Protein backbone atom coordinates (compact mmCIF):
# COMPACT_ATOMS: atom_id res chain seq x y z
CA UNK A 1 0.00 0.00 0.00
CA UNK A 2 1.78 3.10 -1.18
CA UNK A 3 -1.11 5.50 -0.64
CA UNK A 4 -0.88 7.69 2.46
CA UNK A 5 -4.06 9.00 3.99
CA UNK A 6 -4.69 11.44 6.79
CA UNK A 7 -6.29 9.57 9.70
CA UNK A 8 -7.85 11.41 12.63
CA UNK A 9 -8.79 9.62 15.84
CA UNK A 10 -11.43 11.69 17.63
CA UNK A 11 -11.61 11.16 21.39
CA UNK A 12 -14.63 12.71 23.11
CA UNK A 13 -15.10 10.35 26.07
CA UNK A 14 -13.55 10.13 29.53
CA UNK A 15 -11.38 7.15 30.51
CA UNK A 16 -12.39 4.19 32.76
CA UNK A 17 -16.14 4.89 33.01
CA UNK A 18 -16.38 3.36 29.55
CA UNK A 19 -13.87 1.44 27.43
CA UNK A 20 -13.85 3.71 24.39
CA UNK A 21 -10.69 5.60 25.41
CA UNK A 22 -8.70 2.39 25.90
CA UNK A 23 -9.97 0.72 22.73
CA UNK A 24 -9.29 3.91 20.77
CA UNK A 25 -5.67 3.77 21.93
CA UNK A 26 -5.47 0.12 20.84
CA UNK A 27 -6.50 1.15 17.31
CA UNK A 28 -3.92 3.94 17.28
CA UNK A 29 -1.13 1.54 18.28
CA UNK A 30 -2.05 -1.02 15.61
CA UNK A 31 -2.68 1.72 13.06
CA UNK A 32 0.82 3.12 13.57
CA UNK A 33 2.26 0.15 11.66
CA UNK A 34 0.46 1.27 8.51
CA UNK A 35 2.54 4.45 8.16
CA UNK A 36 -0.35 6.80 7.51
CA UNK A 37 -0.46 10.47 8.52
CA UNK A 38 -1.96 10.12 11.97
CA UNK A 39 -3.43 12.76 14.28
CA UNK A 40 -5.34 12.42 17.55
CA UNK A 41 -8.01 14.90 18.62
CA UNK A 42 -9.06 15.31 22.25
CA UNK A 43 -12.15 17.40 22.85
CA UNK A 44 -15.19 17.48 25.12
CA UNK A 45 -14.74 14.79 27.83
CA UNK A 46 -11.91 13.28 25.78
CA UNK A 47 -9.49 15.79 27.30
CA UNK A 48 -9.84 13.91 30.60
CA UNK A 49 -7.92 11.00 29.04
CA UNK A 50 -4.69 12.99 29.25
CA UNK A 51 -4.76 14.15 32.89
CA UNK A 52 -1.59 13.51 34.87
CA UNK A 53 -1.49 11.46 38.07
CA UNK A 54 -4.10 8.84 37.20
CA UNK A 55 -4.05 6.08 39.82
CA UNK A 56 -6.52 3.28 39.21
CA UNK A 57 -5.50 1.00 42.10
CA UNK A 58 -8.73 1.82 43.94
CA UNK A 59 -11.05 0.72 41.13
CA UNK A 60 -9.20 -2.39 40.00
CA UNK A 61 -8.93 -1.34 36.38
CA UNK A 62 -5.64 -1.21 34.49
CA UNK A 63 -4.15 2.26 34.24
CA UNK A 64 -3.40 2.86 30.57
CA UNK A 65 -2.47 6.53 30.78
CA UNK A 66 1.26 5.74 30.51
CA UNK A 67 0.67 4.38 27.04
CA UNK A 68 0.08 7.91 25.74
CA UNK A 69 3.69 8.70 26.59
CA UNK A 70 4.87 5.81 24.39
CA UNK A 71 3.06 7.11 21.30
CA UNK A 72 6.15 9.02 20.16
CA UNK A 73 7.98 5.71 19.72
CA UNK A 74 5.27 4.73 17.26
CA UNK A 75 5.69 7.99 15.34
CA UNK A 76 2.35 9.24 16.62
CA UNK A 77 3.34 12.79 17.48
CA UNK A 78 0.29 14.98 16.86
CA UNK A 79 -2.10 15.09 19.82
CA UNK A 80 -4.45 18.05 19.42
CA UNK A 81 -6.26 19.14 22.58
CA UNK A 82 -9.10 21.67 22.43
CA UNK A 83 -8.60 24.66 24.68
CA UNK A 84 -12.33 25.39 25.12
CA UNK A 85 -12.90 21.82 26.30
CA UNK A 86 -10.14 22.22 28.90
CA UNK A 87 -11.53 25.58 30.06
CA UNK A 88 -15.07 24.29 30.53
CA UNK A 89 -13.74 21.48 32.71
CA UNK A 90 -11.60 23.71 34.90
CA UNK A 91 -8.39 22.25 33.43
CA UNK A 92 -5.25 23.84 32.03
CA UNK A 93 -2.42 22.34 30.03
CA UNK A 94 -0.52 21.98 33.33
CA UNK A 95 -3.08 19.37 34.42
CA UNK A 96 -2.15 17.16 31.47
CA UNK A 97 0.73 14.69 31.23
CA UNK A 98 3.83 15.83 29.41
CA UNK A 99 3.96 13.79 26.20
CA UNK A 100 6.94 14.21 23.94
CA UNK A 101 8.63 12.75 20.87
CA UNK A 102 12.10 12.92 19.39
CA UNK A 103 12.10 14.80 16.10
CA UNK A 104 14.18 12.83 13.60
CA UNK A 105 14.27 15.87 11.29
CA UNK A 106 15.72 18.08 13.99
CA UNK A 107 18.63 16.07 15.40
CA UNK A 108 16.26 14.03 17.60
CA UNK A 109 15.34 17.06 19.67
CA UNK A 110 12.63 16.27 22.25
CA UNK A 111 9.43 18.13 21.39
CA UNK A 112 5.93 18.23 22.88
CA UNK A 113 3.33 16.00 21.20
CA UNK A 114 0.39 17.79 22.80
CA UNK A 115 -0.71 20.91 21.00
CA UNK A 116 -3.49 22.90 22.61
CA UNK A 117 -5.62 24.41 19.85
CA UNK A 118 -8.73 26.56 19.72
CA UNK A 119 -12.11 25.13 18.78
CA UNK A 120 -11.84 26.88 15.40
CA UNK A 121 -8.46 25.29 14.78
CA UNK A 122 -9.87 21.90 15.82
CA UNK A 123 -12.63 22.33 13.23
CA UNK A 124 -9.96 23.05 10.60
CA UNK A 125 -7.99 19.97 11.62
CA UNK A 126 -11.12 17.82 11.34
CA UNK A 127 -11.94 19.28 7.95
CA UNK A 128 -8.52 18.40 6.52
CA UNK A 129 -8.69 14.62 7.07
CA UNK A 130 -9.28 11.68 4.78
CA UNK A 131 -10.57 9.28 7.43
CA UNK A 132 -12.14 10.22 10.77
CA UNK A 133 -12.54 7.51 13.41
CA UNK A 134 -14.70 8.47 16.40
CA UNK A 135 -14.45 7.00 19.89
Amino acid sequence: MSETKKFLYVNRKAPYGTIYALESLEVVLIGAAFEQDVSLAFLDDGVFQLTRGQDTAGIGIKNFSNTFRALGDYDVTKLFVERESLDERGLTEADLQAITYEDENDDWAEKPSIRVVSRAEMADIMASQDVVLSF
Partner: protein
Amino acid sequence: MKIGVVVSEGPYTHQAADTAYHFVKAALDNGHEVPRVFFYHDGVNVSTRLSVPPQDERHIQNNWTALAKDKGIDLVVCIAAAQRRGLLDENEAKRQGKDASNIAEGFRISGLGQLIEMGIQTDRLVMFGD
Protein backbone atom coordinates in the same frame (compact mmCIF):
# COMPACT_ATOMS: atom_id res chain seq x y z
CA MET B 1 -29.44 -4.95 56.17
CA LYS B 2 -30.40 -6.87 53.05
CA ILE B 3 -29.22 -5.10 49.93
CA GLY B 4 -30.27 -6.07 46.42
CA VAL B 5 -28.07 -5.13 43.47
CA VAL B 6 -28.81 -4.71 39.76
CA VAL B 7 -26.13 -4.65 37.04
CA SER B 8 -27.42 -3.16 33.79
CA GLU B 9 -24.37 -2.91 31.53
CA GLY B 10 -21.90 -5.30 30.00
CA PRO B 11 -18.37 -6.04 31.25
CA TYR B 12 -15.36 -3.92 30.21
CA THR B 13 -17.49 -1.58 28.07
CA HIS B 14 -18.97 0.15 31.11
CA GLN B 15 -17.60 0.36 34.63
CA ALA B 16 -20.95 -0.72 36.11
CA ALA B 17 -20.02 -4.38 36.65
CA ASP B 18 -16.77 -3.34 38.36
CA THR B 19 -18.35 -0.78 40.66
CA ALA B 20 -21.10 -3.22 41.58
CA TYR B 21 -18.50 -5.86 42.41
CA HIS B 22 -16.56 -3.56 44.75
CA PHE B 23 -19.82 -2.34 46.29
CA VAL B 24 -21.03 -5.88 47.01
CA LYS B 25 -17.70 -6.87 48.56
CA ALA B 26 -17.79 -3.77 50.80
CA ALA B 27 -21.40 -4.44 51.81
CA LEU B 28 -20.51 -7.98 52.85
CA ASP B 29 -17.38 -6.76 54.67
CA ASN B 30 -19.57 -4.30 56.59
CA GLY B 31 -21.81 -7.11 57.79
CA HIS B 32 -24.71 -6.65 55.40
CA GLU B 33 -26.38 -9.34 53.33
CA VAL B 34 -26.44 -9.32 49.54
CA PRO B 35 -28.75 -12.23 48.80
CA ARG B 36 -28.96 -11.64 45.07
CA VAL B 37 -27.44 -9.71 42.18
CA PHE B 38 -29.69 -9.35 39.14
CA PHE B 39 -28.14 -8.90 35.68
CA TYR B 40 -30.36 -7.06 33.21
CA HIS B 41 -30.02 -5.29 29.84
CA ASP B 42 -26.41 -5.72 28.63
CA GLY B 43 -25.56 -6.75 32.19
CA VAL B 44 -26.36 -10.30 31.12
CA ASN B 45 -23.10 -10.27 29.15
CA VAL B 46 -21.20 -10.42 32.45
CA SER B 47 -22.27 -14.06 32.76
CA THR B 48 -20.35 -15.47 29.78
CA ARG B 49 -17.74 -18.11 30.50
CA LEU B 50 -16.03 -17.47 27.15
CA SER B 51 -14.43 -14.15 28.07
CA VAL B 52 -10.64 -14.02 27.67
CA PRO B 53 -9.42 -10.59 28.81
CA PRO B 54 -5.71 -9.65 28.50
CA GLN B 55 -3.61 -11.23 31.25
CA ASP B 56 -2.88 -7.88 32.92
CA GLU B 57 -6.56 -6.93 33.18
CA ARG B 58 -9.11 -8.00 35.80
CA HIS B 59 -11.29 -10.96 34.84
CA ILE B 60 -14.75 -9.56 35.59
CA GLN B 61 -16.74 -12.78 35.11
CA ASN B 62 -14.31 -14.91 37.15
CA ASN B 63 -14.40 -12.33 39.95
CA TRP B 64 -18.19 -12.58 40.16
CA THR B 65 -18.15 -16.37 39.99
CA ALA B 66 -15.60 -16.55 42.81
CA LEU B 67 -17.45 -14.01 44.97
CA ALA B 68 -20.76 -15.83 44.52
CA LYS B 69 -19.18 -19.15 45.45
CA ASP B 70 -17.35 -17.71 48.43
CA LYS B 71 -20.29 -15.75 49.86
CA GLY B 72 -23.31 -17.65 48.59
CA ILE B 73 -24.75 -14.89 46.42
CA ASP B 74 -27.49 -15.72 43.94
CA LEU B 75 -26.39 -14.35 40.56
CA VAL B 76 -29.50 -14.18 38.38
CA VAL B 77 -29.38 -13.46 34.67
CA CYS B 78 -32.64 -12.24 33.08
CA ILE B 79 -33.76 -14.84 30.58
CA ALA B 80 -35.48 -12.47 28.15
CA ALA B 81 -32.53 -10.09 28.06
CA ALA B 82 -30.11 -13.03 27.78
CA GLN B 83 -31.91 -14.71 24.88
CA ARG B 84 -31.83 -11.55 22.76
CA ARG B 85 -28.13 -11.12 23.38
CA GLY B 86 -27.03 -14.74 22.93
CA LEU B 87 -26.42 -15.87 26.52
CA LEU B 88 -27.73 -19.39 27.07
CA ASP B 89 -27.31 -22.11 29.65
CA GLU B 90 -27.31 -25.77 28.64
CA ASN B 91 -31.05 -26.25 29.10
CA GLU B 92 -31.90 -23.16 27.11
CA ALA B 93 -29.47 -24.11 24.36
CA LYS B 94 -31.12 -27.51 24.06
CA ARG B 95 -34.61 -26.02 24.12
CA GLN B 96 -33.72 -23.46 21.42
CA GLY B 97 -31.88 -25.92 19.23
CA LYS B 98 -28.56 -24.17 19.67
CA ASP B 99 -25.30 -26.13 19.54
CA ALA B 100 -23.52 -24.34 22.38
CA SER B 101 -24.08 -22.65 25.70
CA ASN B 102 -21.95 -19.96 27.32
CA ILE B 103 -23.13 -19.25 30.88
CA ALA B 104 -20.45 -19.36 33.57
CA GLU B 105 -20.55 -21.24 36.84
CA GLY B 106 -22.33 -19.37 39.61
CA PHE B 107 -24.81 -17.63 37.33
CA ARG B 108 -28.33 -18.91 36.77
CA ILE B 109 -30.87 -17.87 34.18
CA SER B 110 -34.33 -16.94 35.40
CA GLY B 111 -37.21 -14.54 34.87
CA LEU B 112 -37.79 -10.88 35.64
CA GLY B 113 -39.92 -11.91 38.60
CA GLN B 114 -36.65 -12.49 40.45
CA LEU B 115 -35.90 -8.77 40.12
CA ILE B 116 -39.27 -7.74 41.56
CA GLU B 117 -38.95 -10.35 44.30
CA MET B 118 -35.53 -8.94 45.19
CA GLY B 119 -37.06 -5.47 45.42
CA ILE B 120 -39.72 -6.76 47.78
CA GLN B 121 -37.46 -8.88 49.97
CA THR B 122 -34.49 -6.56 50.44
CA ASP B 123 -34.22 -3.37 52.48
CA ARG B 124 -32.39 -1.42 49.80
CA LEU B 125 -31.93 -1.80 46.07
CA VAL B 126 -28.91 -0.33 44.26
CA MET B 127 -28.59 -0.14 40.47
CA PHE B 128 -25.38 0.09 38.45
CA GLY B 129 -25.70 0.89 34.78
CA ASP B 130 -25.17 3.53 32.12
